[in-house]
């Protein structure tokens, strides 16, 4: 098999971007819009809302913790069969959920089965996309991740319409059919053989070499810290606004505004990440520091204009850090190990994501307002950006030496960090 010396940076790569766009829509858009179903489940199964929301929590946890499995399998078999299998699993989970007679059925079918399906789809696709692009990697990732934001807008009304016409059983059946499109997206992922592939070896060898790679470990720590603070505004912003005396409708409208500026931030940062020379890690540090500062300023803002301005800025900067976070990984560990690296990073940073929201809630319960929560979130982000400074070539002002030949020689030392999709999920 002939190996490419360089990433195509276009051509079929744009089809991979399209596939990643739809996949992020079908995985995270569905997860984000699932709240519409929860209301129906509460009345249908007569369970409290807290127990019903465990469905999404289990799904997200399985998706994140299962990422290394997805990436290890992709390294061995290529992304296409893994993603297609993941699509079938995700659709099967929803199909079985439509026959559920108790909440436990939903935990197992949507949480476990669909969750593992999602674990097999998202991470391999993002890694595959990182391999297809090198010069325009950030832009490609930014464009693909816009799928998450746009689908949240589209799926929430769509799901409500499905519920009105088919009740929750029929609606789940049709969401299962929707999730089958993940299989079609997987078919688009043509395997790419890059020069460093034979050097880096199989998944086991990759994972062990990644775990001994200093920069990769530091990067993982940084992303975990960032992930801990990242979700807090999305989870608590509306509650914080209600505490300040806002009505429910303007509060959720402000969240939509944040989602729009998040979208703009992702694309802008993607373009910027490619346009600016030097390691992308510096841009990541810039956006992370800005986001941390903005979060710390939240308790100070009392006026509506101040809060709106802060929320728009937060949406932009937090959206901006996602594609760049993913682009740093291939630069660190090379595109050969990107599948395994991405999986490992996703798994570790998910711990931060899972801890962040409950910690913030606990702080709120103890101090009776969200000041401490926002400040702690900002502190986590600033700590993460601090760790980023320790990455290699941080203070270089020339283009990073990420040529394939160098990566081949460095392949044995570096591990490919995978983009944190954790930052993209909500």
């Amino acid at each position, binding site marked *: 098999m*002939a*190996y*490419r*010396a360089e990433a195509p940076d276009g051509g079929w790569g744009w089809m991979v971007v399209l596939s990643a766009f739809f996949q992020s829509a079908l995985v995270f858009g569905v997860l984000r819009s699932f709240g519409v179903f929860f209301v129906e489940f509460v009345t249908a199964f007569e369970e409290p809302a807290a127990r019903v929301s465990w469905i999404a929590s289990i799904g997200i946890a399985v998706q994140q913790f299962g990422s290394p499995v997805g990436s290890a399998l992709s390294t061995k078999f290529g992304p296409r069969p893994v993603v*297609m299998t993941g699509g079938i699993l995700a659709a099967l989970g929803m199909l079985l959920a439509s026959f559920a007679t108790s909440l436990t059925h939903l935990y197992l079918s949507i949480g476990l089965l669909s969750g593992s399906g999602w674990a097999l789809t998202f991470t391999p696709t993002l890694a595959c996309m990182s391999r297809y692009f090198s010069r325009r990697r950030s832009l490609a990732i930014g464009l693909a991740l816009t799928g998450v934001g746009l689908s949240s807008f589209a799926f929430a009304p769509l799901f409500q319409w499905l519920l*009105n*016409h*088919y*009740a929750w*059983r*029929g*609606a789940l*059946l*049709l969401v*299962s*059919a*929707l999730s*089958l*499109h993940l*299989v*079609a997206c997987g*078919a*688009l992922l*043509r395997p790419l053989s890059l020069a460093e592939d034979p050097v880096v070896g199989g998944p086991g060898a990759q994972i062990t070499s990644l775990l001994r790679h200093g920069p990769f470990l530091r990067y993982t720590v940084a992303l975990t810290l960032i992930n801990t603070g990242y979700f807090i505004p999305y989870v608590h912003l509306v509650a914080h606004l209600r505490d300040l005396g806002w009505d429910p409708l303007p509060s959720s409208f402000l969240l939509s505004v944040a989602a729009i500026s998040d979208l703009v931030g992702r694309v802008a940062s993607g373009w910027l990440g490619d346009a600016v020379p030097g390691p992308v890690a510096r841009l990541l540090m810039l956006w992370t520091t800005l986001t941390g500062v903005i979060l710390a300023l939240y308790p100070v803002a009392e006026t509506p204009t101040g809060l709106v301005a802060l929320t728009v800025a937060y949406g932009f900067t937090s959206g901006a850090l996602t594609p760049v976070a993913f682009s740093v990984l291939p630069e660190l560990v090379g595109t050969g190990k990107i599948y395994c690296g991405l999986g490992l990073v996703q798994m570790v940073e998910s711990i931060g994501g899972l801890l962040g929201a409950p910690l913030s809630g606990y702080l709120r319960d103890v101090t009776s307002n969200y000041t401490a929560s926002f400040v702690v979130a900002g502190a986590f982000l600033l700590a993460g950006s601090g760790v980023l400074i320790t990455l290699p070539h941080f203070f270089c002002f020339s283009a990073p030496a990420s040529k394939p030949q160098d990566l081949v020689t460095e392949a044995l030392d570096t591990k490919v960090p995978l983009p944190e999709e954790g930052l993209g999920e909500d």
Partner: protein
Amino acid sequence: MRALQGLRGRRAPSLPLLLLGLLAAVRRSLEDGLSTAAPFTSLPVQEEMTTKYSNLSLESHSISMTEHSNMPVEKNITLERPSNVELTCQFTTSGDLNSVNVTWKKGDKLLEDNYVVNATGSILYTQYRVAVINSKQMGNYSCFFGEKKQQKGTFNLKVPEINGKNKPLITYVGDSVVLMCKCQDCLPLNWTWYSGNGSVQVAIGVPVNDKYVISGKHANETGLKITQLSEDDQGTYWCHAIFELGESEGHVKLIVLSYLVPLKAFCAIAAEVVLLVAIILLFEMYTQKKKKPSDDGKELEQGEQLKLDDSNGIENSGPRHRKNESVGQ
């Protein structure tokens, strides 16, 4: 004895005086009755009613109008249990208050008594009192001011409203469903359910069977549980709340679908996905086949060039070989 005689004696000459006084009073009352029959004759009746129903609660409602009001003024009053009701209409006019004619009507029937009229300053007040004890006293009570240009104010006495569900409930064949009707702040005496086919309402649950179970956790709500749904169970269901003062109803619409309905949509979308996957994979195989013959052609060219290079020197073949490899991919 002398006292008694004195009394008798005193009584005897005062009897004609008493009779005269009585006659004068009757005449006065008749005169009063002629001028304002309402305040005089209604008073004893009012007192009688209030003493009879004094243990009932009192509800007072008032509306005000001016002579220039364009729209008739209405007020909705919700009554759940028997109570005394006071309805007051205020009329503000710049003209002469005494010349304004005041009448009360229930529905279309003119009311003769139970109301008073008085005027303070430039406002004319009229108050109607009624003891509402059953559904006969419910309805619309209107006060009218003036003759030529009548101003009308209406009090609508109604039983509380029942909330069913505005959106239709969607269920599937074989499922079971609970239809709920709820009353916000009221406690009906009893609930009954009817299923409606057009305008005909058929009572449910009269023969108690397994299919229909009427239950309710609290007094202000009722639930009709229907098991083993079939498509015949589709339609509108009415819940009637029975109060002392009347009945109120709400409705819930039930739609029963068969599993085939979403299943057809699912199969259509699944077929579309299979088609997409087939197109993508076939397209890839087609482009790869296109590449292969051209690859063969290029390899032949490479071979020829190598032969040429061999004659020049071996060092040239190395880079060219690598370049051809990358092009061939």
